């Protein structure tokens, strides 16, 4: 399953409808364009609180992608500051519920819990990784940014970003194939 030098590059546009999701395989390089939503720890907690209180969410989840990021402040004249992925496992507690409500993809870094992977398979969702630490490089693919909720959370507010050819890799596909496990197995000399 794990591919290496000959990885294919796939141009993908949001919303990530199921027909697009099922064609992706762990290891695929993706250049993602369209609108995506930012949310990290505090925003996830609020989203889930709103769900349990029966309130409507600040954006419709169906076929959408959440990017786990808390960007640095934008310099004058710039769209956004450096904006690399934060570690995804901290959102694991909240993610299955969001997937079951229509969320179709996440962008972050690091492996996910078995519960998240099960919910991804159940909903044919995809988890992408972006390169942790490549924050300024990734920000270059963000062409628009607007805060749409939880402004008081500062860097943790929910933003809608418009991205153009954001470089990602499919880390876990809709079938549960996991590049973190397969890649490490391939190079382990233990």
């Amino acid at each position, binding site marked *: 399953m794990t591919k290496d030098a000959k990885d294919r590059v796939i141009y993908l546009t949001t919303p990530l409808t199921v027909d697009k999701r099922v064609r992706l395989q762990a290891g695929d390089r993706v250049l993602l364009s369209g609108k995506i939503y930012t949310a990290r720890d505090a925003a996830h907690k609020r989203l889930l609180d709103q769900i349990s209180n029966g309130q409507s969410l600040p954006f419709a989840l169906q076929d959408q992608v959440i990017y786990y990021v808390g960007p640095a402040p934008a310099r004058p004249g710039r769209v956004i500051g450096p904006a690399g992925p934060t570690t995804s496992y901290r959102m694991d507690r909240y993610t299955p519920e969001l997937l079951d409500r229509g969320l179709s993809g996440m962008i972050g870094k690091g492996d996910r819990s078995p519960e998240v992977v099960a919910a991804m398979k159940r909903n044919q969702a995809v988890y992408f990784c972006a390169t942790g630490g490549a924050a300024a490089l990734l920000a270059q693919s963000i062409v628009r940014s607007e805060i749409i909720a939880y402004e008081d959370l500062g860097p943790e507010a929910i933003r809608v970003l418009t991205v153009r050819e954001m470089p990602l890799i499919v880390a876990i596909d809709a079938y549960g194939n996991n590049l973190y496990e397969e890649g490490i197995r*391939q*190079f382990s000399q*233990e």
Partner: protein
Amino acid sequence: MRIIDAKTITDAVRQIFLDISCKLADDVATAMESAWQQEKSQRGKTILRQLLDNDRICRKTGDCVCQDTGMSILFVEVGQDVHIEGNFEEAVNQGVREAYTAGYLRKSIVEDPLYERKNTEDNTPAIIHTRLVQGDQIRIEALAKGFGSENMSAIRMMAPSAGEAGVLDFIVQTVKKAGANPCPPIVVGVGIGGDFESVAGLAKRATLRSVFSRSPDERYKQLEIKALQLINKTGIGPGGLGGTVTALAVNVEQAPTHIAGLPVAVNISCHAVRHGSVVI
């Protein structure tokens, strides 16, 4: 006695954080280039190239290398012949405040850790370790520590019988458990000895050493080399997606400890160990 105005400390702290946040340290940049040469995974090479490109972009634009510009940690050695005019800790925090505002650095500190978790909006308070030393100078070493890697750190109070094998196993298991989370390639700081509290400090200080420096004690130097070899056999690789370069260096610092104890701390840093120092 030498009189140093608190404002001088503020200015020094401000300048260090502005300098360290927006480019890779020279030793790290060199190590990353050779990591790119050595890496056997094509995917791993691509990730290393992205990180090198990121550094190049930041050197041109003045952007911070990572959006997590970290918690501000300072190790300050104050000469006992210095008199500081003004409030020392407030001066340090003011330097942090100014740097994180002027440098468009992210403010990542929450006031209460468990309940409100409200952002202080200026990245203060900093963590300040102060030590009184001889002389009439102040030496400030500053670290901007991201929490993707900090969260992956661990302490274990081992039995002395665990020996070198036990220590090596703990280091490697900590790195394996961390996997992709701390943004590998990582720099691993290891503290051995002291007590529960000080061993963590040893590990953190160890991350501040150059990735090319080896322990002056031959036995600990060999321990550093062995640990690095074992870590790079795990297969975690750049970005944790598989590869042969998982860590750039393992730096070990040791200290005397109790007859019953062998405290070991592993403090993990991402490749961008953002640190710098200045002498006033």
